[in-house]
């Protein structure tokens, strides 16, 4: 029994471990942390010239005349894109945790997910992912309601019924097909709090769990109580199911974290920024149209 408990605890640890790289990433929409990942056609590139230093004449190869390189007139130029920052008073701790999670990913999570993806074909893994997504419908449904996003809630309810009945208990996702076209509403409790006007606070990089903030940490804990398997008997079942879910998730996103890290100058800051941008947009634009009366709260933070 004791060994069993140890094993389960380890599993929980690992389970969440995948969340580490996913947290940013795996949330409702896949890889936020992979802004780069799929830029497929976005950013073909550059000068071959490995010559790292550029003299003035090189300006021509870059394109644009010298005028383009003058001072920016109004330094407010960048302002039109919203400023997205977060306080980071815990930076030394956060950086240490970032490194820890990084090792955890490369030494444990990735090998496990790779082995799993060799054993299970992608189609099956997508189905497993659909199943879990369908299963966690209460989180999205309730949060849509809390956000007064009734259209979203209706859409979630419809998706749940259709996918459970015609999607073999949620293994398939017929509701997303062109004919039905009910979109998944990526609503969570951290987002709900944000829409109510709770600020992010500061940045926390949790060991294992990854990027978060006080608000989103409360959100994550809140959402656990809307996850059905927590009511299905002993907590080991919940933990076990989370492990499978996370391994499965990771297996569908192998490479995303690597791309992000490879593209970054400072991977820690890149992850932090991706997380903040992602959460902010989710609160500002994705909870459906801002519910009447709440929109005022959205304006500042």
């Amino acid at each position, binding site marked *: 029994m004791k060994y069993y408990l140890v094993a389960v605890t380890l599993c929980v640890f690992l389970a969440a471990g995948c969340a580490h790289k996913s947290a940013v990433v795996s949330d409702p*929409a*896949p*890889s*936020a*942390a*992979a*802004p*780069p*990942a*799929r*830029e*497929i*056609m*976005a*950013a*073909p*590139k*550059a*000068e*071959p*010239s*490995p010559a*790292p*230093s*550029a*003299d*003035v004449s*090189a300006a021509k*190869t*870059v*394109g*644009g005349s*010298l005028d*383009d*390189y*003058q*001072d*920016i007139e109004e*330094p407010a130029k*960048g302002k039109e*894109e919203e400023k*997205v*920052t977060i306080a980071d008073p815990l930076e030394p701790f956060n950086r240490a945790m970032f490194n820890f999670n990084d090792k955890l990913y490369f030494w444990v999570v990735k090998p496990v997910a790779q082995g799993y993806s060799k054993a299970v074909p*992608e*189609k099956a893994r997508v189905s497993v*992912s659909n199943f879990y997504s369908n299963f966690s419908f209460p989180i999205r449904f309730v949060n849509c309601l809390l956000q007064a996003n009734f259209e979203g809630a209706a859409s979630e309810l419809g998706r749940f019924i259709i996918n459970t009945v015609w999607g073999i208990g949620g293994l398939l996702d017929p509701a997303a097909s062109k004919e039905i076209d009910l979109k998944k509403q990526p609503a969570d409790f951290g987002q709900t709090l944000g829409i109510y006007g709770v600020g992010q606070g500061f940045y926390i990089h949790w060991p294992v769990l990854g990027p978060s903030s006080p608000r989103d940490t409360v959100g994550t804990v809140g959402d656990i109580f809307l996850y059905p398997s927590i009511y299905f008997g002993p907590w080991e079942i919940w933990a076990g199911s989370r492990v499978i879910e996370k391994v499965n998730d990771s297996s*569908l996103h192998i490479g995303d974290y690597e*791309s992000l890290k*490879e*593209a*970054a*100058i*400072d991977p820690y*800051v*890149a992850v*932090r*920024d*991706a997380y903040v*941008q*992602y959460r902010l947009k989710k609160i500002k634009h994705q909870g459906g149209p801002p519910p009447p009366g709440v929109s005022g709260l959205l304006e500042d933070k």
Partner: protein
Amino acid sequence: MRRPLTIAFTTLIIFLFTLAAYAGVPLDTVQTNVNKVLDVLRDPKLKSESAKEIKKKKLRVIYEQMFDDVELGKRTLARNWNSLTVPQRQEFVILFRQVLEKAYIDKILAYTNEKIVYEREIMISGTQAEIQTKVVMASKEIPITYKVILKNGSWKVYDVVVENVSLVLNYRTQFSDILAKNKPEQLLEILRKKVKGQ
């Protein structure tokens, strides 16, 4: 009875055409460029491993037509742009482009016929627009938004937003973090090292 109908039809058609033409330029530009990229990637003559360099070369040419390097660099540095000297700015633009190439070229070359959907075009102002697209894959859809600016008569990309994360903003945070503690020259040195691959 026939006449008015014909006239109505003609008007309607003319109206539709002008509307399409008016709404379409930024989106068309992005689409044309993306299609050029896809043509290179799908070219059966360039399938072999040895043709990789040829592909890269072709992609660079398209990149130059599609992106506004300097605008991208400026927006990424934002107010720090002014603290660099002009030659430093020029070197920065070149280095940053190389960093991006290095980071994304393999991803781009790994393209395997995913479908790209052009969802809509949003005019932000007379000279700026956002083109929302998505890449449809077996297991997921990835929203990609191109931000374009009108310069010298053509629309050029100055930022790419993938899954709600803006490339420019993401690098801006990293660079301003570095520049808060270091001199511009040190930032350039970091970028040089990154390009050299370590």
